[in-house]
């Protein structure tokens, strides 16, 4: 050890290791771990090794869960469900409160264990992960207490299968378990195979606080265990992890009726404008991509800097990079710990090498890597072309890309030039600019002049291929509640489409022959196929409708994208259009009723009258269904803004040809979406009659597009379309399964709409509006 005199010369920090003795003692006392099922640990089965990534040392052997283990855990959770869900909110709150308190009492133990298992610095586990875990449990103790009052009529989903990643093992556990338990669900959780240890310690804490057995079950294992859990008899799957696995889960759960939330990958932009606090932004990069070794789904991994300050910014970023300390994660002065596993390290190395081979220039911290363990020196790339692999692919390591932009428009364009949409960070001292960009960037979380700030009171989750669903806040609790059940009604079977001439006398005689075309971009278009099909009413054929095809869907989606201004219009503007639509529909009430009557609708007049009322209802909601300011940290405004998805696909029921269509498209457009709708396949003429109503109601072209034809074929094209952000489908179970499976391509949000009594109260409501929006949380710290 150097003397005080020596140190006075070097002024080094010296070692400051956190002791791990207590935790190692616990690990050795426990021996091999089994699963935690029904309130106790099973005997260890086939085990796999869990190693400390900083040293390669063996920490524990943990059981590989198989189908039988998963089934036993699900059975235990199922058995525990009735009692747990019937406990009063207050009683569940007491349990969650006890868990929160015990996390705090074990905070150092859990921080050390997490650091050993994951390799992240003790500074982070101690100051960030574990405090956030406790905060999450406290917050949700509160939701449990208030559940009945705040979410009237809603109940738990049931047994939830939860699969969590290795980057924030205990924190992701808390994000999953706390809301599930608060809402009265029971859970089976599978921690990541690299990092199962804090979950197992949490299992002991569950026992320690007297949580009823079976409420929380923990099954360890690898991806196969996760797949078994997805396939098991659970009511919901909540997954955090890679987009690739998320896609597989979307496909696997398609048509099963399992509720699904996915929190997936990202390639989040970190936008620095010329008027930003450059030093603040440089420090932001440290908290963005050099946090947790860059193994952060919402990491600001694409740094976009305005040209004028790029030189200064890069210089200061390089200087700051040089100050990072890499090494023993247990050392209190370590910034960069170990990569979670040698497999991940190899992946990072490969991607970085490939990025360099494709021409990017790597700037890396000049730090000495330890002789053993999985370490990677942090850095960033310059000279990165947009098509370079490191521009597109999530590296999931401590390496960002740095590119420049010229104007705010270009910054937004570059920011949104990604398949992901998890988070964004915007740096500017100009509040107009910062909030404008925050509004325009496609991301579920936006931090203004900050990055990676988390709180249980705010929702977290992505747009686009970063997944769907939110964790945290009111919106997160909603993901663990089932809506009041709708009284489902079987719809009429879709008719076979006859495209040849029908040599029958027409059921009704039009004074002049009418041609119902498609409605695309505000104009009537012939179907690309050149075919029409016969629409039969009560007494026979009542007209012909265009036979839409994939190409018409393509054109309709393009037209919908061109109408983006609709999403930026005020709620008041949209309300005016909807009121006007109601007015014009009312003017032609008799004609629409007659058409429905000729089609054989049971209550034609009532259907039209209800459609008019519905337009009034959504006009009323257009400027009222708004967001919230979440109570998070002091001196932070955290805005939860419902935003439209953009372009939505809507496949309508065969019944209620007018009201079924309007009940679905009105809430969607009221919130600012543009829709491509496939109306009732059996009776599309009520929809085609609406074209003139739309035209006379100042509805901008492209906001509503209607393609008539075979519903499930057209729905399949829509569900598979990568530029459609959400899809509602009302139809058969097979159709719903198809839509959910096809949606995996871009992970669009899907909603299987039950056919229902569209004339009744279940035909409208806030539920439709929340399905038509996604919540963006914008964090604005303030202070002078």
């Amino acid at each position, binding site marked *: *050890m*150097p*003397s*005080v*005199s020596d*140190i*006075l010369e*070097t*002024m*080094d*920090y*010296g*070692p*400051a290791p956190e002791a791990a003795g207590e935790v190692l003692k616990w690990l050795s006392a426990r021996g091999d771990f089994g699963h935690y099922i029904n309130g106790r640990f099973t005997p260890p089965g086939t085990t796999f090794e869990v190693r400390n990534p900083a040293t390669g040392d063996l920490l524990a052997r943990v059981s590989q869960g198989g189908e039988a283990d998963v089934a036993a855990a699900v059975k235990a959770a199922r058995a525990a469900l009735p009692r747990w869900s019937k406990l009063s909110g207050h009683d569940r709150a007491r349990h969650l409160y006890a868990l929160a308190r015990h996390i705090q009492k074990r905070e150092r133990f859990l921080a050390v264990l997490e650091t050993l298992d994951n390799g992240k610095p003790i*500074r982070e586990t101690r*100051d960030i992960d574990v405090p956030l875990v406790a905060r999450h449990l406290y917050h949700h103790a509160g939701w449990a207490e208030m559940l009945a009052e705040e979410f009237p009529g809603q109940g738990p989903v049931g047994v939830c299968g939860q699969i969590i990643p290795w980057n924030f093992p205990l924190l992701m556990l808390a994000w999953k378990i706390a809301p599930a338990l608060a809402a009265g669900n029971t859970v089976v959780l599978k921690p990541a195979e690299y990092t199962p240890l804090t979950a197992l310690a949490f299992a002991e804490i569950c026992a320690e606080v007297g949580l009823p057995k079976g409420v929380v079950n923990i099954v360890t294992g690898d991806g196969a265990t996760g797949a078994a859990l997805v396939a098991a008899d659970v009511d919901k799957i909540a997954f955090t992890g890679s987009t690739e696995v998320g896609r597989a889960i979307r496909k696997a759960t398609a048509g099963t009726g399992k509720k699904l939330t996915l929190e997936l990958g990202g390639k989040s932009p970190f936008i620095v404008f010329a*008027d*930003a*606090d*450059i*030093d*603040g*932004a440089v*420090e*932001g990069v440290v*908290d963005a991509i050099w946090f947790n070794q860059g193994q952060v789904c919402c990491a600001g991994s694409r740094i976009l800097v305005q040209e004028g300050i790029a030189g200064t910014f890069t*210089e*200061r970023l*390089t*200087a700051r990079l*040089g*100050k990072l300390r890499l090494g023993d994660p247990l050392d*209190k*002065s370590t*910034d960069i710990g170990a990569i979670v596993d040698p497999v991940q390290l190899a992946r990072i190395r490969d991607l970085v090498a490939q990025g360099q081979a494709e021409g990017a220039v790597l700037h890396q911290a000049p730090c000495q890597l330890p002789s053993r363990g999985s370490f990677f020196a942090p850095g960033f790339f310059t000279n990165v072309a947009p098509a370079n692999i490191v521009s597109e692919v999530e590296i999931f390591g401590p390496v960002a890309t740095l590119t420049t932009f010229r104007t705010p428009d270009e910054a937004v364009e570059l920011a949104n030039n990604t398949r992901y949409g998890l988070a964004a960070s915007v740096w500017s*001292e100009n509040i107009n600019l910062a909030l404008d960009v925050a509004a325009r960037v496609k991301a579920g979380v936006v931090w203004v*002049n*900050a990055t990676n700030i988390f709180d249980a009171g705010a929702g977290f989750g992505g747009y686009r291929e970063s997944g769907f669903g939110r964790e945290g806040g009111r919106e997160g609790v909603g993901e663990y509640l089932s809506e009041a059940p709708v009284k489902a009604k079987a719809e009429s079977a879709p008719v076979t489409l006859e495209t040849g001439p029908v040599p029958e006398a027409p059921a009704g005689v039009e004074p002049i022959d009418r041609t119902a075309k498609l409605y695309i971009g505000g104009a009537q278009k012939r179907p690309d196929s050149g075919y029409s099909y016969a629409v039969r009413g009560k007494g026979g054929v009542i007209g012909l409708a265009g036979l839409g095809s994939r190409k018409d869907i393509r054109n309709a989606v393009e037209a919908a994208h061109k109408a983006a201004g609709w999403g930026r219009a005020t709620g008041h503007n949209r309300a005016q259009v909807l009121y006007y639509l109601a007015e014009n529909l009312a003017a032609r009430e008799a004609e629409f009723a007659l058409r429905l009557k000729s089609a054989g609708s049971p209550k034609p007049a009532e259907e039209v009258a209800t459609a008019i009322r519905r337009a009034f209802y959504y006009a009323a909601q257009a400027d009222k269904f708004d967001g919230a300011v979440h109570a998070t940290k002091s*001196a932070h405004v955290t805005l939860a803004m419902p935003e439209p998805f953009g372009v939505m696909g809507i496949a309508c029921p065969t019944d209620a040809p007018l009201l079924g269509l309007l009940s679905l498209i009105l809430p969607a457009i009221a919130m600012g979406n543009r829709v491509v709708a496939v109306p009732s396949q059996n009776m599309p003429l009520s929809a085609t009659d609406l074209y003139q109503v739309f035209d006379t109601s100042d509805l901008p072209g492209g906001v509503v597009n209607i393609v008539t034809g075979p519903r499930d074929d057209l729905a399949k094209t829509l569900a598979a379309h990568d530029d459609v952000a959400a899809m509602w489908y009302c139809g058969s179970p097979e159709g719903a399964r198809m839509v959910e499976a096809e949606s995996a391509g871009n992970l669009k949000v899907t909603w299987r709409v039950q056919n229902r009594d569209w004339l009744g109260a279940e035909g409208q409501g806030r539920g439709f509006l929340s399905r038509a929006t996604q919540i963006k949380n914008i964090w604005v*710290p*303030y*202070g*002078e």
Partner: protein
Amino acid sequence: MQAEAVHSLSRNERNPGVPLTPDWFDHIAVNTPAAERRAATLTTRRTVKKEWQAAWLVNAIRCMDLTTLSGDDTPDRVRRLCAKARQPLADRILVGLGLDRVTTGAVCVYPTMVSTAVKALAGSGIPVASVATGFPAGLMPLNLRLAEILYAVDQGAEEIDIVITRAHVLDGNWSALYDEVAAMREAAGAAHLKAILATGDLKTLRNVYKASMVAMQAGADFIKTSTGKEGVNATLPVSLVMARALRDYGARTGFRIGFKPAGGMKTAKDAIAWQILMKEELGNDWLRPDLFRLGASSMLGDIERQLEHHVTGRYAASSRHALA
């Protein structure tokens, strides 16, 4: 340290100042929450333990302007302070640390106490710093403030801690501020000039940056946070912004400016915190008394207790240490 790569900073050359150049600070952006976050996590990202902690605490003493600035200061009180400055640590602690001699960086007093301090410190090599220019408010006619500098220098002060006219900052009257500090620098002559910005009165971090830059442009050798008499004295966010200002000045001119936080720092923990800030933001050169001073009085007592604990393994009592 980055500045070094850009310019070859000359270690010994005094800052001669540059003409007032508002371009260097007019559009400065300082985001307060971001600065506060950085300041709050500086000391959670770094720590020193055992021998290193001891060394860093000794270094804090080497960089300390041991200060008495009270209305009831007397020559005897100042002599006692000087004795402590000569020997801030008891011999037994020094021996335990394996060190021969440690002194504080300077002693800081009112102008009328300078001659007493100079005599008391004769032969020690410890410079005497004097506050001047109507400390602490500075609201005296400029000619009297300059006369006070001349008096203190004449009494033997080698360092002059001046206060600026806060109104010039609050009004954005940069030329008035520049002229005032430049005149003070001239009056100080060979004595080093430490410009006290009284950041607690300036309120915004942008004001702090701008005042720092004007003081350096006018020729200040050091920039200093506080008199110790404002409502809020040295804080880490303010120090962070000043450190970045002097980094930027160095990058533009090649001259190194010193930094002195003062007021409100009472504990050994504070001493470590500010040194971490210096090392992280500026580098090791700003851990030496020629570029870094801690303006403090009671902090020394806490450091001495911590160091005795380091040497003996027993928690210490201040009654066993010589009073300052």
